[in-house]
């Protein structure tokens, strides 16, 4: 009965498995070729591959050190300082950009002409100019044109602005950090605003009407009925924006904020270990991105409609 089984090359599964097998094999060969090429070239230049240099003394200073660091510490320690600096910007950035983005996204749909158009102008300007340009703008045109430290501007008695950055009674932020953070917040916020607007508009009109007919005020309609449904559409692209913000923080190098990319460049420059440092950087950003993705996917699961 089973004797008339088709020959194996007619079997769909056989081809599927073989194709994958070949693909993996070719990829492995490519890696081997690239690797042997690299090691040959490094050998010709008399450079050895390895991560020993990380234990050497860094012998450069870093302007912002959230953990104790001095020039006599190792490159590893310096890179940690950089990583923590990156995390500071990324976490604060993700938090504030969400607020800015949701606010701008909702006000884009406001009934108030002025509010709606202010939001429109904000989104269009910040979405359509390069981030690098915006960072340089925040740094040079905003923070560095504040008065000197002994002549600072005081806002409501507790925030003061000067060339030394933003100072609160219990905290102070350097102009490099402040410019980078504001640049990232407003740039990413403009994209999130569009995502939020799209999400809200994707909720059927009937939902608004139904909520209103139950006697909800407009604010409550948004908060309790429309926005929770919009979140289903918003969260996946929002994840991309969080990833973008985190990766874009590497532009810090343009305005002198010592993030991980910056410290890694200095390390590479002093040691000449281009390949090793780039591998470390790739691994770091990959880890950061995957962490954000996983957390956002968990969040996404909670807002999806449970289906049977």
């Amino acid at each position, binding site marked *: 009965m089973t004797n008339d089984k088709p020959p*194996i090359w007619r079997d769909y599964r*056989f081809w599927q498995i*073989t194709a994958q*097998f*070949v693909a993996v*094999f070719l990829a492995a*060969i490519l890696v*081997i*070729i690239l690797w*042997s*090429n690299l090691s*040959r*070239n490094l050998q*010709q*230049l*008399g*450079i050895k591959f390895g991560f020993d240099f990380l234990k050497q003394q860094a*012998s*450069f*200073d*870093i*302007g912002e050190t959230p953990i104790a660091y*001095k*020039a*006599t510490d190792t490159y590893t320690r310096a890179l940690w300082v950089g990583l923590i600096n990156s995390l500071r910007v990324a976490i604060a950035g993700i938090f504030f950009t969400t607020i800015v983005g949701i606010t701008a996204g909702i006000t884009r749909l406001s009934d108030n002409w002025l509010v709606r158009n202010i939001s429109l102008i904000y989104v269009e300007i910040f979405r359509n100019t390069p981030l690098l340009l915006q960072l340089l703008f925040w740094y*040079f045109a905003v923070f*560095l*044109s504040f008065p*000197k430290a002994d002549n600072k501007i005081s806002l409501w008695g507790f925030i003061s602005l000067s*060339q030394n950055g933003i100072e609160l009674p219990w905290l102070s932020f350097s*102009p*490099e950090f402040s410019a980078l953070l504001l640049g990232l917040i407003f740039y990413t916020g403009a994209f999130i605003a569009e995502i939020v607007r799209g999400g809200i508009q994707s909720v059927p009109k009937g939902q608004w009407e139904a909520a209103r007919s139950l006697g909800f005020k407009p604010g409550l309609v948004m908060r309790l009925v429309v926005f929770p449904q919009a979140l289903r559409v918003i969260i996946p692209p929002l994840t991309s924006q969080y990833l973008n913000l985190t990766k874009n923080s590497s532009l810090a*190098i*343009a*305005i*002198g904020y*010592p993030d991980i990319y*910056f410290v890694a*460049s*200095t390390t*590479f*420059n*002093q*040691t*000449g270990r*281009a390949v090793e440092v780039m591998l470390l950087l790739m691994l770091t950003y990959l880890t950061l991105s995957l962490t954000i993705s996983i957390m956002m996917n968990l969040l996404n699961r909670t807002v999806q409609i449970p289906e049977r």
Partner: protein
Amino acid sequence: MWKSAWILAIAPLILTLAACSGESGQTANTTTTPSGSPATQATSNRWNTIKSRGQLICGVSGEVPGFSFVGTDGKYSGIDVDICRGIAAALFDNPDAVEFRNLNAKERFTALQTGEVDVLSRNTTWTLSRDTSVGLEFAPVVFYDGQAIMVRKNSNIKSLADLKDKAICVQTGTTTEQNLADQMRKRSITYKPVVFEDVNVTFATYAEGRCDGITADRSALVARRSLLPKPEDNVILDEVISSEPLAPAVAKGDTKWGDVVKWVVYSLVKAEELGITSQNVTQFASSNDPDIKRFLGTEGNLGEGLGLTNDFAARVIKHVGNYAEVYDRNLGPKTKLNLARGQNQLWSKGGLLYSPPFR
């Protein structure tokens, strides 16, 4: 069983690819050059690659007046640029057979290692680690420099000690960054480095007043000061915190090409010692002095040893002049920079420049 049959079928393909890998290893260095000339074993004979390309590719900064700078006429000038032109003159008897590539402090070594440029002539300090672990081979020093600090005149900062807890602008990827850290550590002065990758941004930030001081090689400070909005409002402190011998470099592993660059630099110094200039070099050709005859290639075959023509030094001097001419044209009293020759004088006049014999 079928699987093993397939592996056998793929095997020839793998072998072909593996064979290719050997080739790609050898040509890898030339793949990045724009001409794409398929000269094999590029790193062990760069001179052949340059010859078939017909042009020298020279990595410069392009942002330091007096060293390498693009003028309003779009032309490169500076001492680093003249070294490149000198090499091109020795190779092709044409100082314009050079393509300049602007490299920042971070790009420069990789550009050299990967064969993007043939020679790096970019106010680069010769250090032991660069000579050994970064894969560079240095030619002789073309400018002896030292690191200094510039501050605003009205700032009351008179010495390094006055910079305690102040912000200092630094460019990253330079020995400057480490020297400053060393000096301040030695004297236990705390300070706040504000570090940038781009030299223009570094100086712009200082000009905006973010930093109380800015540090760089003394010559670079003098050069960049001339570009500040009010040059006269800035002073360079007397303290010199390091020695910075600036030298051209080639990639390690090609001593022949390294020798060419080395002896072009020496020929500039030697010409000044012998009193040969771009003006009188043709008259010197008929000299009876055996030293001069050997130098200019009218006697002996010194150039052949380098793979050049015997009159390579004469070509260099004819087109770019001797060291003094190069110096005066770019950094001397007739220029905006007006740097005293100081230690960049010939040894016979109390300086550090000395050429081994052309013999």
